[in-house]
């Protein structure tokens, strides 16, 4: 599926009526997306969560790192909506602040994977031949290692830090972007407007950036939306294993990990962070599904 530039009329100055009819393809996508109730709900939740993350200090009733042994392990109450942990920290505030790290890690990791994977895929697809073959075989190698194990190995080697976590998750997602971009590059490569660009003497870099990539955006966006969901899951998993974000930082995976030992007496410590992860990932998945449907109506039956 490509957003062909062909849909833009060759003589764009030929009267307003024609332009009115042929709105940008993105407007068309937005129109279809709006009609999909589930996708709109997913999008709303994602936007809401972004707000929560940005305005965490205003929403959280307490300082997420303020310890107070006197009120440790209190069950949920009006004062502490999600209870308090073993250091007496307010769980609700910690869950609110946790959204920051999760979304941050999710978006940056996908950014790393999509940019580098995208470059590899576009270059491979555009030039073809041996280079393409080499790049894709390298991706096969990365795909041969289960994603989470690859990420664990990278974090293990680089050491645990926020940046390393994002790099590890990003690299483990790299092959899928490379494949998606390569596939759409192949479909776009032979089209007239690419040839036209070549004919007027545009450089390869310019053709890839200005003609090819904009026409591959649809699958990249869908893949990235679903990718953020999986990156958030992967990051939480690594933190849960003690290989990601380290305590005392408020992060959902590591909160689950430290709440685990109190599963018997204080199950709310593991319940709420898990619910938070599930909601984020679910919303992103629903939104991503809807986006895919509206970008490619053919797939929907």
């Amino acid at each position, binding site marked *: 599926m490509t957003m062909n530039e062909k849909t833009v009329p060759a003589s764009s100055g030929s009267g307003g009526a024609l332009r009115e009819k042929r709105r940008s393809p993105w407007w068309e996508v937005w129109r279809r997306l709006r009609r999909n109730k589930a996708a709109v709900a997913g999008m709303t939740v994602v936007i809401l969560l972004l707000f929560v993350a940005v305005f965490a200090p205003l929403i959280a009733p307490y300082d997420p790192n303020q310890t107070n042994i006197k009120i440790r392990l209190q069950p949920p109450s009006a004062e502490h909506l999600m209870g308090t942990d073993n250091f007496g920290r307010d769980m609700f505030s910690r869950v609110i602040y946790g959204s920051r790290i999760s979304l941050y890690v999710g978006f940056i990791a996908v950014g790393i994977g999509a940019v580098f994977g995208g470059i590899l895929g576009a270059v491979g697809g555009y030039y073809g031949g041996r280079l393409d073959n080499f790049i894709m*075989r*390298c991706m*096969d*190698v*990365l795909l*041969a*290692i*289960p*994603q*989470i*194990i*690859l990420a*664990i*190995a*990278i974090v*293990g*080697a*680089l*050491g645990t830090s926020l940046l390393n976590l994002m790099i590890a998750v990003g690299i483990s997602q790299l092959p899928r972007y490379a494949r998606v971009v390569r596939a759409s590059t192949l479909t776009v490569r032979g089209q007239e407007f690419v040839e036209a660009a070549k004919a007027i003497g545009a450089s390869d870099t310019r053709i890839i950036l200005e003609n090819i990539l904009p026409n591959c955006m649809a699958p990249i966006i869908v893949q990235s939306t679903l990718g953020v*969901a999986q990156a958030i*899951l992967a990051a*939480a*998993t690594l933190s*849960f*294993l*003690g*290989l990601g974000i380290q305590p005392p930082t408020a992060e959902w*995976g590591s909160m*689950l990990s430290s709440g*685990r030992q109190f*599963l*018997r007496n204080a*199950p709310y410590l*593991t*319940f709420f*962070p*898990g619910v938070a*992860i*599930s909601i984020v*990932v*679910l919303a992103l*998945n*629903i939104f991503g*599904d809807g986006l895919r449907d509206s970008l490619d109506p053919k797939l929907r*039956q």
Partner: protein
Amino acid sequence: MLRYFTKRLIFLIPVLLGVSIVIFAIVHLAPGDPAEVMLGPSATQEDIGKLREQLGLTKPLYVQYWIFLTNALKGDLGRSIKSNAPVLEEILERFPATLTLASLGMLFAITVGLPLGVLAALKQNTWVDALCSFFALVGFSIPNFWVGLMLMLLLSITIPILPSSGFDSWKNLIMPTIVLGIQTMAVIARMTRSSMLEVIRQDYVRTARAKGISDRLVLTRHILTNVMIPVVTIAGIYFGHSLGGVVITETIFSIPGLGRLIVDAIRAQDYPVVQGGVLFFALCVGIVNLLVDLLYAVLDPRIKAQYRSAK
């Protein structure tokens, strides 16, 4: 067909070679020095130097890699720094538990996911469909380690009917199976649904119905056989994925398998075990993919015919 599979088997070699380079590079990027780790903080500089020499760590990296590779080809993956046992021995000792778990997880995923997808497709656009589809989406989205903890809370603590850790009886296997299989189950359900919806509209299905074949026969003989192919593909891909999932499952339920071996090895900087373990995982993924290809031919006579003519 045999020739095709021999060819595929040979293609596996460069991939494994690539994996060995990648994992070797990753492990040797690690800042810690294995000799220091082995001897502990009280070791003298002299002892560390001697051990480095002994382990071959003073040689250039490409020489170290060559030694690792030639030994690996002979089935020698080195010795664990922590236990001093041969790495391959440790892997094989723990592999049965992991394989059991992964297979059971897959079995669970198929036995629940397939009917769920079929049901959703047959009742398309009804509340049954919505429920099944939502269930699948939830299964795909919730973190499996959290599912594990919640199951434990429910079935080991609140209603204590299942043990929360260990690997002795079938009771130990129930919760890990669900945790490991839930994501694959969701994926299979979704794939089955969309594949069903496509097949149901095919002409041969209408023809079969027109001939007066019972609904059940049309479903089992005409629809499901065609639905299976994309489903098997996805299941195969996710089997490799769920092999990675054992890392979580084995950690939560304290099962002595391969996943925990690798995680523990990374924490202890036991690099020969990490290297060998990851390489072994990649080998398993490769073999599973090959088996999936074999299964295609069994499921789809058209593919079988293609292999024959390719001969």
